[in-house]
């Protein structure tokens, strides 16, 4: 059976004056899949997410989310997506529950749905024990958890997680991995990261970005087969070195 396409970009490019942040990106993500966008800092991962979220206008090329154009049908696209930005974008003086209610009120059309959805997320995302705590008093791990919970409260079809575990300690990272793992197959997810083990542990497929270009895409075994290397770190280094020689 043919898989349905959730995200498709064709020649997607973003230039800032002289700098090319994303260079003719051709990417396909299938429905229900989790794709890890892997790359070092400045590889163009966040710029790609911004363009796919309608937060940045592409200089060239097209991008479609479930058949909707990110430029021409921006409002429809916004209703389909959820985003957890790189920095924890939460309302600091609101409690966990208030943050969730606020986002649910913004994203959900039906008012009567808000309360039940907040309870569902508090339970499903194991946030009940901190529901009455102000966001500013939460640890980094809890804040990231809340940030992701806020991104999915509107029941998005496509979720962007931009460096969700950046700066977290190993335990908080593992905890967050479990939550992200639980979201798999419920929605299409693009996860940007520069942690190899994170991409390896969570993603169905991995797309390696180097200097704004998509260098290689596939499952880990496919990438290992193409490069002849074992493990994602070795694959990544080999791709990066090959790219540097080109």
């Amino acid at each position, binding site marked *: 059976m043919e898989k349905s396409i959730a995200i498709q970009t064709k020649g997607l490019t973003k230039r800032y004056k002289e700098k090319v942040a994303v260079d003719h990106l051709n990417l396909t993500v299938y429905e229900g899949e989790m794709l890890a966008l892997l790359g070092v800092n400045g590889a163009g991962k966040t710029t790609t997410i911004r363009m796919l979220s309608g937060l940045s206008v592409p200089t060239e090329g097209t991008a479609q989310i479930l058949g909707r154009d990110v430029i021409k049908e921006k409002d429809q696209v916004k209703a389909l997506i959820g985003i957890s*930005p790189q920095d924890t*974008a939460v309302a600091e003086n609101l409690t966990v529950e208030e943050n969730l209610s606020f986002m649910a009120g913004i994203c959900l059309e039906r008012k009567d749905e808000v309360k039940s959805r907040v309870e569902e997320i508090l339970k499903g995302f194991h946030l009940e024990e901190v529901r009455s705590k102000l966001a500013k008093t939460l640890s980094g791990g809890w804040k990231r958890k809340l940030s992701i919970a*806020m991104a999915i409260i509107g029941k998005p079809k496509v979720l962007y997680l931009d460096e969700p575990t950046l700066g977290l300690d190993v335990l908080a990272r593992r905890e967050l991995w479990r939550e992200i793992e639980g979201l798999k197959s419920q929605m299409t997810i693009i996860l940007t990261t520069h942690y190899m083990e994170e991409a390896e542990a969570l993603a169905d497929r991995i797309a390696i970005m180097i200097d704004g270009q998509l260098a290689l895409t596939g499952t880990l075994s496919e990438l290992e087969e193409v490069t002849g290397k074992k493990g994602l770190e070795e694959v990544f280094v080999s791709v990066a070195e090959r790219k540097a020689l080109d």
Partner: protein
Amino acid sequence: MNRTLQFSKRNLLEISRDVLSYIFCIGFPLVMLVIMTLVNESIPKEAGMTIFRIDNLAGGIGIFGLTFVMLFSAMAVSKDRTSSFLIRMYASPMKSSDFTNGYLLPMLVVALAQSVLSFIASLLISLIVGDALNPLGLLAGILALLPSALFFIFIGILFGTLFNEKAAPGLCSIIISLGSFLGGIWFDAEGTGGVMLKICKCTPFLYCTKSVRSALHLTFDWEGFWLPILIVTASAAVMAVLSTLVFRKKMKADLA
């Protein structure tokens, strides 16, 4: 409308949990009210200085308090713009009008609460000093403060949109000083006359104070009330258009 209300609720909660907003928006104007009443009581009657008499002071403090609402409007907008919170909101189905109205509504609530509290305090002081204020005048004063509240809140939104978290409060403090001075809150601008009065008349601040003071005295003549309130309303409308356009332009630039 629902999204505007949701965003307003969030902003109101954020302000209500910031202790500084109570200190600056409520506490400081009340402290100034008490201090200036003490100053007034210390001035010999034969000096004929009435600027700090409670019927004049109440209106001045009402406007002075609004300048701090402006400061908090600027801080709320600039803080959101500096953090990535607005990025999340930009990716949501919210429109630019939801943002500007969402900042405006809670600030109007704060302005209203502040006006009511400072006028209640003024009434109590007036009873103590034996120069009782007319409760009807106080009600009229609250209504007359609304255009000024809009004027200052829109200046705050404009500054918060244009400047970052560090610059916006600093620039607002210039407006607070200018507003208090040119608005004739701390000195009798119209009694001074000359170049000083001409300068004061060139800014909307004097008309803010004048319209509220007239309303408190229940004096609704053209010169004292209607002309000033028209000027303040027109200034508020100009600032509303300007801040909305600038916010929309900045949002567009952020999303470029």
